[in-house]
């Protein structure tokens, strides 16, 4: 692969993190460029992603500086679309298995993660969601995990693992620090509940994901905790 790949991301964005995890795990060369979301450079929307969100990728085209994107590069947005793109660029990386049934299982895991884990969890952290939906989602995703395997699907790290890992990292923060907009104590309560025998399979899987060097490389826990502290000062009742 000689084509350039530039990832526009934000340190705190779990959606950006998914993509970066996949790049790191696939050993893919890339350039990362942080976009200051509250103060976006105007070229970002006009030249990279009209919707103005991260993650966004430019692929191919001449080797330009990231802050001077070329019209000749392909522009790709939406985290799950980018994950598929990376699997297409690196078909031997394991990001998607080669077997059609296993590919479908990875996609199903991603679909369930997006709808039943990410959405309820981020809503909950923002004080909008329900505690029960977070637990239900975790239980559902646990049901998709097979016994005795370290990965979501098959025996290799895939887009499924990349997709859920940033959510797992934030789950760890809220259960250990109780930081978030949800009612005081509900983070700790969630942590206690997840320690029960019912969630043993989930815990083992989650710990495996959190221990991976790729996660430590792409997730700054301290920075994220500091952000949560300043962002979520008001709690819902």
């Amino acid at each position, binding site marked *: 692969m000689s084509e350039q790949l530039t990832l526009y991301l934000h340190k705190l964005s779990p959606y950006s993190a998914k993509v970066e995890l996949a790049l790191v795990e696939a050993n893919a060369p890339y350039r990362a460029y942080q976009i200051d979301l509250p103060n976006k450079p105007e070229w970002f929307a006009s030249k990279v992603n009209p919707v103005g969100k991260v993650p966004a990728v430019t692929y191919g085209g001449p080797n330009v500086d990231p802050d001077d994107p070329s019209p000749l590069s392909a522009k790709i947005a*939406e985290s799950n679309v980018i994950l598929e793109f990376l699997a297409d660029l690196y078909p031997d990386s394991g990001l998607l298995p080669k077997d059609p049934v296993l590919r479908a299982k990875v996609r199903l895991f991603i679909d369930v993660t997006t709808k039943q884990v990410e959405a309820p969890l981020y809503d909950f952290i923002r004080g909008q969601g329900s505690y029960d939906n977070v637990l239900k989602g975790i239980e559902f995703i646990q049901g998709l995990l097979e016994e005795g395997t370290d990965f979501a699907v098959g025996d290799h790290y895939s887009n499924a693992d990349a997709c859920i890992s940033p959510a797992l990292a934030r789950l760890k923060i809220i259960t250990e620090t109780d930081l978030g907009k949800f009612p005081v104590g509900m983070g700790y309560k969630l942590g206690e509940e997840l320690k029960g025998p019912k969630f043993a399979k989930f815990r083992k899987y989650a710990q495996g994901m959190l221990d991976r060097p790729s996660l430590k490389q792409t997730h700054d826990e301290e920075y994220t905790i500091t952000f949560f502290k300043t962002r979520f000062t008001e709690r819902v009742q």
Partner: protein
Amino acid sequence: MPHEQITLYTAKICPYAQRTEIALAEVGAPFKRYEIDLGNKPEWYAPKVNPASKVPAIAYGGPDVPPENPSPESTKLAESLILVEFIGDLYPSSGIVPANPVQRAQARFFIEVVSTKFGPNFMKFASGNPEGTHTVLLAGVDAIQDLLPDGVKYAVNDQYTIADIALAPFWARLTVMVQKGIGAYKDEERKSFLKALEDPKYAKFNGYVQRLLARQSFKSTFHEDVVAEIFTKRFGLAK
């Protein structure tokens, strides 16, 4: 390479299910088709095929059994877009999944836009939800038209792909409804929508959706009478 057996659980009314039927027709795959009466689902369906109890679902592989007696040995898969990609993976030379990664990404992004900006609004409009106005529908049309390249037949290029498959069943059902005045929306909304689409600025979109509806794999899997009848029962006629 011969594939394993495919059994598709589907329903003529359902736009999600039609996506998978179109894909199977496009690739020319042999499969067993089993109609699920969504108003009266067989009691074996959820426990043996799809716990979410929805269509479409595929039972893949395993022994050759009648569809109403699914085997625990077959792999059960669900979610229309995942099934369409699955069919594309089983038949890579069919071309429904574009050959190059950038075009694949374009197809998948198109599908995201259909799923977020068009699909939900179609149901809101049909069911008479006050948020389902002709303006909101047109915003979905705009979002889709903005992605259509110039001078090509379909969403990504001249090749018919998963992107087109994702939209066609939804557009077709909306068309049937607005042309026949079926739906719980106000008739004024319907008229405004149709009038707006006559504007020359929508020429590209109109040409595109015409081609979607003319596609053989679409026509052979679309049951307009069933759709009209069931939607009339469900939503009534526009007032």
